């Protein structure tokens, strides 16, 4: 019974949370109030774990909540609930695009959509960038301009930028090699 409820609640979350993993938060917070499957404090822990493990954040949240609520079966059911509506919607849109892909208006819409999509991606990049490069908390405490910049993060990012774009032997490496390298540098130099 609880599994059915889990599926249904996450199905609704998946259906109405538009625009990525963090958009699921208000729904999860609501779920906590309504069913008491987990507390708001637990929810904050879950966000931290979801952001520090691989995989889409929304899926990680669903898995975590499902597990806390009903064990291994719970995490599978909650995740399936979350992804079912989006799979159905995308399959319908994909069929539509197949039928109308050559339509003049559809093409014109994509002409405008592509740069907008790039703008959103770049904006998300800037969000990460400000966390990596700046330490506003320390800066507001000390007022020292040198405390505002996180030199370690800036140097590491610059190094990876050069290695992925300008150094021939490392340019073609799989991105995961750089993720591993960055994680090790972070641990060794205590970034």
């Amino acid at each position, binding site marked *: 019974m609880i599994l059915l409820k889990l599926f249904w609640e996450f199905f609704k979350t998946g259906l109405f949370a538009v625009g990525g993993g963090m958009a699921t938060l208000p729904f999860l917070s609501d779920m906590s109030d309504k069913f008491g499957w987990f507390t708001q404090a637990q929810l904050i822990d879950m966000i931290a774990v979801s952001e520090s493990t691989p995989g889409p954040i929304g899926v990680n949240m669903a898995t975590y909540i499902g597990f806390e609520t009903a064990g291994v079966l719970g995490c599978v059911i909650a995740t399936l609930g979350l992804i079912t509506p989006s799979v159905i919607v995308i399959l319908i849109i994909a069929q539509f695009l197949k039928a109308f892909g050559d339509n003049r208006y559809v093409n014109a819409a994509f002409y*405008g959509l592509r740069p*907008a999509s790039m703008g959103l991606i770049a904006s998300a990049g800037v969000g990460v960038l400000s966390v990596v490069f700046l330490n506003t908390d320390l800066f507001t405490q000390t007022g020292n301009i040198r405390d505002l910049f996180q030199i370690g993060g800036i140097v590491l990012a610059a190094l990876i930028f050069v290695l992925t774009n300008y150094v021939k032997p490392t340019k073609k490496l799989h991105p995961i090699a750089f993720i591993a390298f960055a994680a090790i540098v972070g641990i060794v130099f205590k970034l």
Partner: protein
Amino acid sequence: MKTLWQLFWSFARIGVCTFGGGYAMLPFIQAEIVEKKGWATNEEITDYYAIGQCTPGVIAVNVGTFVGQKTAGILGGIAATLGVVFPSVVIIAIIAAFISNFAEMEIVTHAFAGIRACVCVFIFNAVRKLWKSAVKDVWCFVIFLAVFLCATIFDVSPVIFVLLAALAGIILKNWGAKKA
């Protein structure tokens, strides 16, 4: 059947590598799906992200479903989607069961400070790669700049930008066509 397995494993690999949400997945999609397998073009991936912004659900899942269904129909879409979520389910279940203070562990926070630096370079590289296929003229650049600035400064739902940009595209293209 073989294609379905390939889709599942390719997307499972992408899922393992993705730290920090759908955008962080972009460089891995480019490496695995566009460059290695040739299942989609850079242009198509940009379209999928745009649609993923304004459809329900997690963006990573939306992009997976799109690529999968394009490669091997409805079953392909389902296989790719299950692939994206498979590693998360396993990893999170293990962490939830055994490690209670994972996110506060010192080694994890340091590793993630490093990974974040890497992810932001990756996103920048991905934008550079997609640039040519997405920003074709001055109007495209104007749309890019407007969305980038508004999305960075204001806390508004991306749905609005996507809808306005599509509308702008239709108006610009048809106005241009009449003029020519």
